[in-house]
């Protein structure tokens, strides 16, 4: 298999993980019009809780994959209830300040509990090793992440576009007062959406932990990638998050061969280009 085909395939793998990191941020902004700078912190908390469940408690990766998103969902719902709900009607700048402060608190709490040293979370035994086929070599674990994220993307799309709950969420984001008058508990719906977005970030943290390790500043990296993806794809667009994630992943991977030193900076240049030519992103609405 040619090097470029390998890089494109690898880019799809990277892009699916980027999609998972970004989709929660996109959903929260699209439906709640709320700028959540704590999104990267939920990614980081997900990775640390995965380490705690999987390694410290010895319950293994699969237990972490099931339990951690649920735990972070509860945490996010509690934070939304007592703190963030009050900021929905404030300016985006106030929301940024509030959620950035929250992310700093979560980051420092992680340092207090786990310290600053990087932690190692092993790949589950069943997914260790590589798949070899001709010249193609790829880690089994990354293949699993690709398949899992693709299935999750389908499930999320169905949840938001094909169910009554999804219809209420979409209606609530467009016509909140009208939807409330029809008898729907909009604050409760928003709370659940916020919890879902945070749980998706945590799920990305669980899946990323065996690939990149666990350390307290990974949230900042996750947040920057998530913003690049949603700016390129369009804030609030599910399809935009998917296409944006894949685009960034493939671009980064292919450039690793063509122009390696620019593989990372180019994704930010790409974001700037999209902002200049399509300020609402490839799939965003004005």
């Amino acid at each position, binding site marked *: 298999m040619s*090097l470029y085909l*390998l*890089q494109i395939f*690898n*880019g799809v*793998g*990277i892009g699916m993980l980027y999609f998972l990191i970004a989709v929660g941020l996109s959903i929260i902004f699209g439906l709640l019009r709320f700028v959540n700078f704590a999104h990267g912190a939920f990614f980081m908390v997900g990775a640390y809780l995965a380490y705690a469940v999987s390694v410290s408690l010895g319950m293994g990766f699969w237990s972490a994959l099931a339990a951690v998103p649920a735990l972070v969902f509860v945490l996010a719902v509690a934070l939304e209830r007592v703190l963030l709900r009050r900021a929905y009607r404030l300016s985006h700048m106030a929301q940024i300040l509030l959620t950035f402060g929250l992310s700093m608190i979560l980051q420092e709490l992680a*340092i207090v509990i786990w*310290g*600053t*040293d*990087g*932690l*190692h979370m*092993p*790949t589950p035994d069943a997914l260790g*090793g*590589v798949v*070899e086929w001709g*010249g193609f*070599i*790829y*880690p089994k*674990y*990354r293949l699993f992440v690709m398949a899992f994220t693709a299935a999750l993307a389908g499930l999320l799309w169905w949840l938001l576009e094909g169910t009554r709950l999804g219809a209420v969420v979409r209606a609530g984001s467009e016509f909140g007062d009208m939807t409330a008058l029809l008898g729907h508990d909009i604050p409760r719906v928003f709370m659940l959406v916020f919890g879902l977005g945070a749980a998706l970030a945590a799920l990305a943290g669980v899946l990323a932990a*065996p*690939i*990149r*390790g666990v*350390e*307290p*500043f*990974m949230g*900042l*990296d996750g947040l920057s990638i998530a913003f690049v993806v949603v700016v390129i794809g369009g804030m609030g667009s599910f399809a935009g998050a998917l296409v944006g994630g894949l685009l960034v992943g493939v671009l*980064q*991977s*292919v*450039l*690793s*061969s063509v122009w*390696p*030193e*620019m*593989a*990372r*900076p180019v994704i930010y240049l790409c974001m700037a280009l999209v902002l200049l030519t399509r300020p609402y992103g490839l799939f965003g609405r004005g």
Partner: protein
Amino acid sequence: MDRRSFMKVSGGLALGGLPWYRSFAADADGFPMGCATPMSGVFAEIGKYSLIGAQAAALDVPEVLGKPTRIVSIDSEGNPGVAVRKVREAMQRTGMRYVSGALLSSEAIAVGKEMNRAGGVAFVGAGADEVTGSECNRATFRWSSTTYGAIEQTVRPLARLMPQARRWYTITPQYVFGDALLNNAKRIFSEMGIEHVGNSYHSLTESEFSGYLTNAMAARPDVLLILNYGAQSTATLRQAVSFGMKQKMTILMAYSDGVTQFHSLGKDIVEDVYFGCQYWHGVDAPTNKHFVELCRRNFKVTPPYNTALTYISTRLTLEAINRVGSADPAGIAKALEGWKYDGLTGPEEIRAFDHQGLKDYYLMKGKPAAEVSDPDEMAVIVSSGESTIPVEQSLCKMAGA
């Protein structure tokens, strides 16, 4: 302003000012020895271990010129501008004239210049050879081996150990430190007739290395030489192992953190990988044995490189002051120049010409995972030795002399 408001403001100011007064009062006690290192931000891990080294040195040299040794912790925040400002403030506040610590390269150069300008001594550890090269000065000393030594003591012995490994691929961060390692590696490749089958540069913000590793696999090298550092080298190696590269080639990480990095990687990843290390706690040297025991007893840690370099640089500085019997920085700098002592790696020396520490650098190999029962003992020393850039090739001109 009415009387009640005036009283409130005055009371508040008085209460607010009290800690400042206490701080100044406390600063008057003891002999101040600075430890400048990143204690917060993404490089906080460096500072945590570096400060322990300074505190350990203060236990060994509890008094300086009849005053109790007092470590002044300075959080450089990984930012050269902040580092210089805080060092300057500490000098004004405490009268501190000496500073040690593990710093980022840009911080080390900036702090060294500031100490040279303000009249002090900086004994630091940093990756950039400029500290004792083109940016050297009378006030700045460096314990860490040069990139020249790091590559000489890893690439050359590994190439001799595996004469059949003729094809090497490199992954390099694109900045001064990475280029220095790469250029030294290329020189050795050329001397030993090794084919350099490719290099992938990457940016300093990169955390996803699978694309670069795909390039490396496509080049089919015998050896993958990882030339980045810290969290980036951890991520590179972790991802290389997940791609099964350990089974297809030999992997050498030329500039590792040692024991703390091994903890972050885990024994399965460390197994069979070669590492270059500035310091190893298991070295059979009297000063090292004492130091390791001191750290384990008092701080409950097995000391990594950052602890070691701050310990030895702080201790040497304090001992030089006691030996000279004066706190005059120019005299202390003179006393440090050319000093031969029993160090953490065995006999060590501070080269008078450029203030570069002459010490061993280690090539290590990860033990089989099944044999690792103690997480501090994941690797063994394969070879060691001291190599420093020859005087005639050095760019040091001793500015500010």
